[in-house]
């Protein structure tokens, strides 16, 4: 078959392959789909496609455009859950190839939507097609990295998922530069920018698909011997993907991720306004933009730092750190406002956002510890529905409580205090969920000769 080069069997590495080729392959994927975090740079230009210098009657509204990102995140979670097993069994090359194609098609369909000024085409393109590309692309290299780095699975997945945070840094200035190049006094170059970015991303993701490899069965890194003494929270067995979701451990970790993400995602979206409102006259719009950039940087770096740290202190302890430190910092944030300390405020959020990113990056290794490596990609896919939930819950908590406070006469500088205490409360619940995680009961372990194993390839 013409596409047989995508088969899992064709991606098995031969002797001499260097496993450090796999992280850049994964980064090729994650750096591209990380663009999703920077989609907001298109929002304002897309409100002026007809009016050019300002919005004209018939131009799209910001509230309508806000749905594009939301639809994409919902489809990220859904596609990761639905296609997780297909990704696991079909191998990373087929998944990365497909994800790259969906991601690019999403941009191209959206470009047509911009040209014809049909918003539903952008919902369909970037939202649905792009969202499916996001979901498949996000989980595609995860289990492969865990298999290549059994000695440091947290660090390996942290490196890839760090790319998802870093993708926005590339996409944001690149989008602005391309729109400047393609714009004329009578035309805003959003459609052309979509086409250019879609094609750039196709090249990048397909290079990643070409260089990715899976290790041969039984392969272990030179000099590495799996620990002989059994560790309570690191299983040597595998759990079938659909059995995993029947365990309390899956749902406890689902809540652990959901609560950790909820606490960070609302702040991430509202950081610019919050910093200006809590420190009126002291934080300018330009400085607030710098603050957003800085917390995004720590969101990215936290993914590598915390996931690597989890290899040393364990996944459960890492999440204990997130929830304990996060609770203290969220309680501290209102005090920084009343003290008027911008530096302390910034420091609090840098650490909080590093742990937000760290939560994403540490969870694949946590799942691997609990459910084994065989179906970890598919299980991870199902767990990402927690992200979809948090993507709604976090911004709603931050925005609506702020509005409620202001409507009840609370000064803007103090309008976030209640939200911060609620976030701290959510993290306490997360701490309890994490404390309840125990080893998976052996009745869930996959037995040799299980018919479902025979059906699954690789």
């Amino acid at each position, binding site marked *: 078959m013409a596409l047989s080069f995508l088969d899992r069997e064709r991606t098995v*590495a*031969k*002797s*001499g*392959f*260097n496993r*450090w*080729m796999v992280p*850049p*392959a994964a*980064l*090729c994927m994650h*750096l591209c789909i990380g663009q999703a975090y920077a989609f907001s740079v298109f929002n304002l230009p897309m409100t002026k496609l007809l009016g050019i210098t300002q919005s004209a009657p018939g131009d799209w509204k910001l509230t309508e455009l806000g749905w594009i990102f939301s639809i994409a995140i919902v489809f990220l979670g859904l596609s990761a859950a639905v296609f997780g097993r297909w990704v696991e069994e079909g191998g990373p090359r087929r998944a990365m190839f497909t994800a790259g194609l969906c991601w690019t098609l999403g941009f191209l369909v959206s470009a047509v939507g911009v040209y014809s000024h049909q918003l539903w085409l952008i919902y369909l393109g970037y939202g649905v097609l792009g969202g499916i590309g996001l979901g498949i692309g996000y989980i595609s290299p995860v289990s492969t990295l865990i298999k290549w780095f059994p000695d440091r699975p947290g660090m390996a997945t942290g490196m890839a998922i760090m*790319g998802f945070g*870093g993708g*926005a*840094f*590339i*996409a*944001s*200035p690149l989008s602005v530069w391309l729109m400047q190049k393609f714009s004329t006094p009578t035309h805003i170059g959003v459609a052309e920018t979509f086409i250019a970015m879609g094609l750039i991303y196709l090249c990048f993701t397909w*290079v990643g698909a070409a*260089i990715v*490899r899976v290790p041969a069965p039984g392969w272990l890194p030179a000099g590495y011997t799996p620990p002989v003494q059994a560790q309570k929270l690191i299983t040597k067995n595998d759990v079938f993907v659909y059995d995993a979701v029947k365990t309390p451990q899956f749902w406890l970790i689902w809540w652990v991720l959901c609560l950790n993400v909820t606490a960070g995602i609302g702040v991430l979206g509202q950081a610019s306004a919050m910093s200006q409102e809590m420190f009126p006259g002291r*934080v*300018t719009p*330009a*400085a*607030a*933009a*710098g*603050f957003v*950039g*800085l917390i*995004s*940087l720590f969101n990215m770096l936290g993914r590598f730092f915390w996931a690597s740290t989890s290899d040393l202190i364990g996944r459960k302890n890492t999440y204990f750190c997130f929830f304990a430190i996060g609770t203290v910092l969220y309680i501290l944030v209102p005090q920084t406002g009343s003290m008027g300390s911008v530096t302390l405020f*910034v420091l609090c959020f840098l650490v909080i956002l590093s742990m937000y990113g760290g939560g994403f990056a540490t969870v694949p290794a946590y799942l691997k510890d609990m459910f084994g490596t065989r179906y970890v990609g598919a299980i991870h896919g199902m767990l990402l529905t927690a992200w979809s939930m948090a993507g709604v819950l976090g911004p709603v908590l931050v925005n609506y409580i702020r509005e409620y406070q202001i409507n009840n006469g609370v000064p803007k500088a103090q309008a976030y205090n209640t939200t911060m205490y609620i976030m701290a409360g959510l993290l306490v619940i997360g701490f309890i969920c994490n404390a309840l995680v125990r080893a998976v009961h052996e009745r869930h372990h996959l037995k040799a000769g299980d018919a479902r194993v025979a059906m699954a390839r690789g």
Partner: protein
Amino acid sequence: MANDQNGTTSLQLAAAWIFVGIPLAWGVWETLANAMKLFS
């Protein structure tokens, strides 16, 4: 593929990391340049 048969060369490894490293470093640099406004 050649690298599978003969092992990964240092050049291939460096090329792969440079391919992803340069855009990432550029993006981080741009972000840091903007972030400096917070302290100016």
